[in-house]
């Protein structure tokens, strides 16, 4: 059990491998490198969103508004592209990051300055942001015909055998890994989750750190807003609706503790991939897609049970012999 707690990522990796083996046994084509790369590419957006959500959950908060933020930013960027096809796509992406970060920062400010519980703040902004998508677009969808081909094709451009979308996820993962392991900010996300009181004693500004988490999560949601609309070539009010819980599910399966302080970049990536593999595998092995939801629900439950076992407090350990073990 202890080993499992320590090597959660390895176990999750094994579970994914097992899944691949089972699927491949029934359907050999599934394990072909090309198909695996496709799954990775399909999961890229979820991975990036889950990385952002991880920061927030680490600080004992939760962001329910990420999907709505994504939809709003996505709609803004799609409408901008439709109105001004000449604006270069990288500029549009930068705009997405800024808008997304702004929406995240709004959550963050309410949590930091007014100390409103994150779940209430983001429950409110969830409906506000999604409502705004409708308001700015007047309900109309932006579809493929209105988007410029650069806008649609940028993330599909293949570079070193992988579409740029996959590269975005890879770069995001590396940056997050550096952030979480090599920077004081990253460590303070963990610290305030593990022990907020001790964080104050250590000189960490708990409120501002939470604000940073929300802002970065928002920036990720914003970037994914562009990636989402250009991937599915549609921007509408319903984009990614209900996806906020999928993002949280990926984190939970990846071993992020909802009580804060525990979670790794690797775990979250694997959690997202796990969901991605399930989504891709079910249609392939002819299990009716209607099983998909129940399976991912069971996976979440299994993951929390296992994680809770790994985290179980061992008490204070007063006896010397117990300490030695």
């Amino acid at each position: 059990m202890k080993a499992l707690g320590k090597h959660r990522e390895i176990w999750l990796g094994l579970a994914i491998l097992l899944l691949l083996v089972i699927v491949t046994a029934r359907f050999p084509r599934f394990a072909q490198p090309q198909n695996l790369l496709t799954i990775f590419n399909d999961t890229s957006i979820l991975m990036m969103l889950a990385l952002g959500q991880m920061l927030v959950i680490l600080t004992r908060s939760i962001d329910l508004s990420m999907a709505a933020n994504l939809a709003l930013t996505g709609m803004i960027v799609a409408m901008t592209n439709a109105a001004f096809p000449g604006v270069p796509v990288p500029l549009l992406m930068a705009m997405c990051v800024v808008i997304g970060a702004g929406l995240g920062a709004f959550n963050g400010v309410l949590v930091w300055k007014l100390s409103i519980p994150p779940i209430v703040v983001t429950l409110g902004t969830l409906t506000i942001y999604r409502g705004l998508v409708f308001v700015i677009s007047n309900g109309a969808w932006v579809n493929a015909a209105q988007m410029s081909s650069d806008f649609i094709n940028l993330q599909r451009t293949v570079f070193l055998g992988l579409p740029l979308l996959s590269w975005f996820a890879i770069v995001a993962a590396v940056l997050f890994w550096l952030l979480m392991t090599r920077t004081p900010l990253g460590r303070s996300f963990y610290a305030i989750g593990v022990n907020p009181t001790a964080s104050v004693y250590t000189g960490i500004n708990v409120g501002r750190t939470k604000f940073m988490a929300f802002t970065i999560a928002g920036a990720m949601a914003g970037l994914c807003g562009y990636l989402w609309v250009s991937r599915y070539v549609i921007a509408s009010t319903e984009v990614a609706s209900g996806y906020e819980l999928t993002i949280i599910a990926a984190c939970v399966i990846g071993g992020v503790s909802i009580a804060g302080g525990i979670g790794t970049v690797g775990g979250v990536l694997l959690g997202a991939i796990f969901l991605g593999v399930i989504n891709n595998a079910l249609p392939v092995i002819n299990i009716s897609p209607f099983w998909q939801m129940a399976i991912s629900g069971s996976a979440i439950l299994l993951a929390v049970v296992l994680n809770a076992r790994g985290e179980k407090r061992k008490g204070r350990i007063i006896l010397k012999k117990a300490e030695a073990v």
Partner: protein
Amino acid sequence: MTDPILTLSGISKSFPGVRALNGVSLELYAGEVTALIGENGAGKSTLVKTMTGIYQPDAGEIWVAGKVVTLPTAHSASAVGITAIHQETVLFDEMTVAENIYLGHAPRNRWGMIDWRTMRAEAKKTLDAMAAGIDPDIKLKELGIAKKHLVAVARALSIDAQVVIMDEPTAALSQKEIEELYVLIELLKQDGKAILFISHKFDEIYRIADRFTVFRDGEQVGKGLIRDTAQSQIVQMMVGRAVDQIFPERTAAIGETVLKAKGLSHPTEFEDISFAVRKGEILGFYGLVGAGRSEVMQAVFGMTQPSSGTLVLNGQTIAPKSAADAVEAGIVYVPEERGKQGVITGEPIFKNVSLPSLRKTSKSGFLRLAEEYALARTYTERLDLRASSLSQDVSTLSGGNQQKVVIAKWLATLPKVIILDEPTKGIDIGSKAAVHQFMSELVAEGLSVIMVSSELPEVLGMSDRIVVMREGRIIDTLDNKGLQPETLVRLAAGIAEEQAA
């Protein structure tokens, strides 16, 4: 004599209901150890927190190296060269030892990234210097309380500070570790650091301190050089009166055995605990902090399940699976962590008091407020609770009055055995005496009292018999007749006979 490195003047700090510090001053000198002495709740830790940027003083100035400083955050305190080992371990269970030492001031490489390799190496060096025998790469949660405290010490040392504050650093350490700490303090002194040392143990104060400052009830009541002052003088300043008057005279008739524990064990916390408490008796449990007394009492109270052993109450074997079971059987527990486990803050006094007795005050499950108020009034007035009304939120009460609410809550259930865990911890002197008075009334009425306490005078002054615990085991059970404090200390700390003599 040189000028002090750090000077505090006129520092005041109030909490709702308590004036923790009132215009205190303090000087610390390079290369000297200043002992800060005072009873529980005198304001020592509060002062430490204002010196390290965790609390902001309501009034007063902090001078470091001749300049006034403000300390809005813990960072700013380490920036001006102040570091502290706090009384409670404020560390991060899920992080490695090395990171616990360096969080917030980790070494960076040339790209501004945290340099883990250097960090681990430095941590290892510091820990080895302390002969702590701790692997810097394991997670903190794998360590016991003593080792955790050593990590806290290492953290303080890792900050290159001029002023090192130690708030009861030895309370949880074994003798061997304490000796190593003394060596470290000697080294720091030679380095020219100013050290503020808080302790309740006079032997160690006399061994390592150069100066002392005494606090009483949030005020500075005396200071001087240790070598010029006798222990009795310091005690006089601390308490404000002679020590032996504090405890009430008792003449309770001790009767039959009421509660008997036989061989209680828990996989990691305690082993083979056997004791018995009789009608009308106060059974004291003494030990150093972390000896496992609270864990034992919580097992008796049904909060944790022992792996083996039996409990016999009035001749009947009981196995409480929850606190509710224990209360039903007639065993109640006044916990040590009052704010977390005792009172329900956010709720008014009368709801706190009536909570375990709701079955008595209600009628077929429906509340009857009048009965609840009556019940709450009966028991709070008996304890002389100071409050404005029964609907006052308990969080606005002072610690001592909160404690009275907890005791009132239990008395209302008419228990057979009442367990008091550190009943006077953080309680002011007046309330303390009231609690002591009340305990003697309880036994006079035929209750059995188990009192867990780390305060020697309290244990010696109140108990009929004393159980001494160390590291999760019972060391001895003694009759409190002509017991010498040294005997208890020796047993609790595990010091061999000849060493103590």
